[in-house]
């Protein structure tokens, strides 16, 4: 008999793997082992996982197989996932990739991860990220930069995977896990998804509980997911959303079946194209891809409408007042007293100052100081209050635009992945999030879908923006892009050590 070609289980999408598990044609232990082997072979090069919970993963997989055997499978039974180190996981190292939390093992579980385990998912380990989620390249991690599995055609130069959820994006693109949790304060899910050819969803502010997520800027932070397909995201998203009494900003809103919503047509859907997103100096390739995206929607029977967001250009500077202000206040808790690093000093104040000087990296210090400055006496009105007023105008722009359209289509990033150490200037780095930040400022849901490759062979994403709590329409629109652009393979496995 001719040998049938055996596919590696890591090549399955989350949807395919879930279906194979539930039909018992694949065991969770085999699936989990395959992913652990992929991590063992390639993580040294990519630095996506900073902690692999091997024994826990196998124990969870065995438990899942037993449940499937008993006919008690839950929605994500046996599906191996990676968890951004921002999410507190009980008894498992959770540090937001900061030295100030080195060795921290929370005695509690974040609501988002608890919901995943309650749905049967398997934890492979913790994923790399920018320290305290502050960054757009994953270079500010105390555990070293994470590397993008993508390289430009014929080049060996190491590229960033984007940030702050760089580890999540790289791990999903490299097939180290079927999906990953991520978080997005100003674009930290969508920007790395775009740079690695993966799908990233930031749901509406309040959709997911922030309880047990290490806080960066509380009025902007939101949990979400990175996967390889839109459907995979819809499946994971359904499990992590929902009201949580432990987070007073969590919304008591019903969670629809996002997966089922993907089957509906987009005929007659009104797709808005915000004219202010046409920035001078945006690469011709990005402009062309955006045009192509508009054509895809026309072909699918959607109606394209130009909309205006007059204050869009002020979103980024306002964000770099509000986010550091909230960060300076949230990060005041790291003082060397109750948990984490302590550096001894001459007195209590000296201990605080030495601990925080040694525990925080350069970008985090810069933002804490910026935040302290804009909140300090004499500057509060000029900076912080002004930025919050501008934020009102940004939100009003979106409210007005959404009277005429159901969803908006924009580029996710100004360009493709850049080289490690290439961007040194903070303002230049901040400009990466110019297209994603306005969505956080208005609390809206956003999605990045891989849409094409540059001339040099690097992925670019298109962003969809939804109405509050209308992730279903946004995902349905995302399916149009994926259907037209096709699923993205990662470049052939240069990162894996050859098997002995």
């Amino acid at each position, binding site marked *: 008999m001719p040998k049938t070609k055996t596919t590696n289980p890591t090549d399955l999408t989350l949807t395919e793997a879930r279906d194979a598990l539930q039909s018992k044609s694949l065991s969770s232990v085999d699936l989990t082992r395959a992913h652990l082997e992929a991590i063992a072979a390639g993580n040294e090069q990519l630095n996506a996982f900073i902690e692999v919970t091997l024994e826990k993963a196998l124990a969870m997989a065995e438990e899942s197989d037993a449940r499937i055997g008993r006919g008690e499978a839950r929605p994500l039974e046996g599906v191996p996932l990676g968890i951004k180190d921002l999410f507190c996981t009980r008894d498992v190292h959770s540090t937001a990739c900061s030295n100030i939390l080195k*060795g*921290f*093992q*929370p*005695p*509690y579980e974040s609501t988002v991860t608890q919901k995943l385990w309650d749905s049967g998912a398997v934890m492979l380990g913790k994923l790399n990220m920018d320290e305290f989620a502050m960054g757009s390249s994953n270079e500010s991690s105390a555990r070293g930069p994470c590397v993008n599995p993508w390289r430009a055609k014929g080049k060996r130069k190491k590229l960033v995977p984007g940030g702050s959820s760089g580890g999540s994006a790289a791990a999903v693109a490299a097939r180290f896990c079927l999906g990953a949790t991520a978080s997005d304060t100003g674009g930290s899910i969508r920007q790395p998804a775009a740079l690695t050819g993966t799908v990233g969803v930031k749901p*509406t*502010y*309040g959709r997911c509980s922030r309880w047990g997520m290490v806080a960066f800027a509380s*009025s902007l932070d939101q949990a979400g997911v990175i996967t390889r397909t839109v459907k995979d995201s819809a499946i994971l998203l359904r499990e992590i959303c929902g009201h949580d*009494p432990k987070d*007073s*900003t969590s*919304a008591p809103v019903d969670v629809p079946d996002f997966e089922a919503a993907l089957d509906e047509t987009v005929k007659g859907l009104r797709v808005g194209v915000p004219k202010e997103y046409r920035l001078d100096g945006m690469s011709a390739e990005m402009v062309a891809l955006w045009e192509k995206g508009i054509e895809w929607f026309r072909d699918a029977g959607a109606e394209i409408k130009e909309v205006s967001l007059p204050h869009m250009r*002020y979103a980024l*500077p*306002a964000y*770099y*007042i509000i986010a550091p202000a909230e960060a*300076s206040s949230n990060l*005041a808790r790291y*003082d*060397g*007293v*109750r*948990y*984490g*690093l*302590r550096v001894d*000093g*001459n007195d*209590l104040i000296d201990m*605080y*100052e030495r601990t*925080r*000087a040694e525990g*925080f990296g350069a970008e985090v*210090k*810069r933002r*804490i*100081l*910026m935040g*302290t*400055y804009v909140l*300090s006496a004499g500057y509060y009105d000029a900076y912080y*209050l*002004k*930025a*919050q*007023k*501008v*934020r*009102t*105008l940004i939100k009003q722009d979106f409210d007005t635009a959404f009277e005429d359209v159901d969803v908006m289509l924009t580029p996710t990033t100004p360009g493709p992945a850049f080289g490690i150490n290439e961007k040194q*200037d*903070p*303002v230049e780095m901040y400009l990466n999030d110019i297209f994603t930040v306005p969505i956080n400022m*208005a*609390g809206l849901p956003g999605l990045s879908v891989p849409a094409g490759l540059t001339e040099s062979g690097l992925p670019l994403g298109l962003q969809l923006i939804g109405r*509050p709590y209308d992730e279903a329409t946004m995902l349905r629109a995302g399916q149009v892009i994926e259907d037209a652009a096709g699923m993205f393979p990662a470049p052939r496995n240069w990162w894996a050590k050859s098997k002995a």
Partner: protein
Amino acid sequence: MQIDEATVRHIARLARIKIGKQEAANLERELTAILDWVDQLGEVDTENVAPLTRIGDLTLPWRTDEVTAGGCQDDILRNAPMTEDGFFVVPKVVE
């Protein structure tokens, strides 16, 4: 807005972060550049605009005033750098 070294030192003190000479010089330059860039917000007319204080139209929930967690002293102390007899230990605060 030009930030000088004295201002950098003042805000570092407020933020409880010790900074060295070279670090102060870098921060002087970087914070000035960031503030110059955010100064473009001055172009926006915000007269009669209320600041955004919460996102989404949620009113904050109420609950009865009762203990919902507690009795977990060991959990609370277990990541502490230094403890004694069930307390956090810090350098002497008062003489």
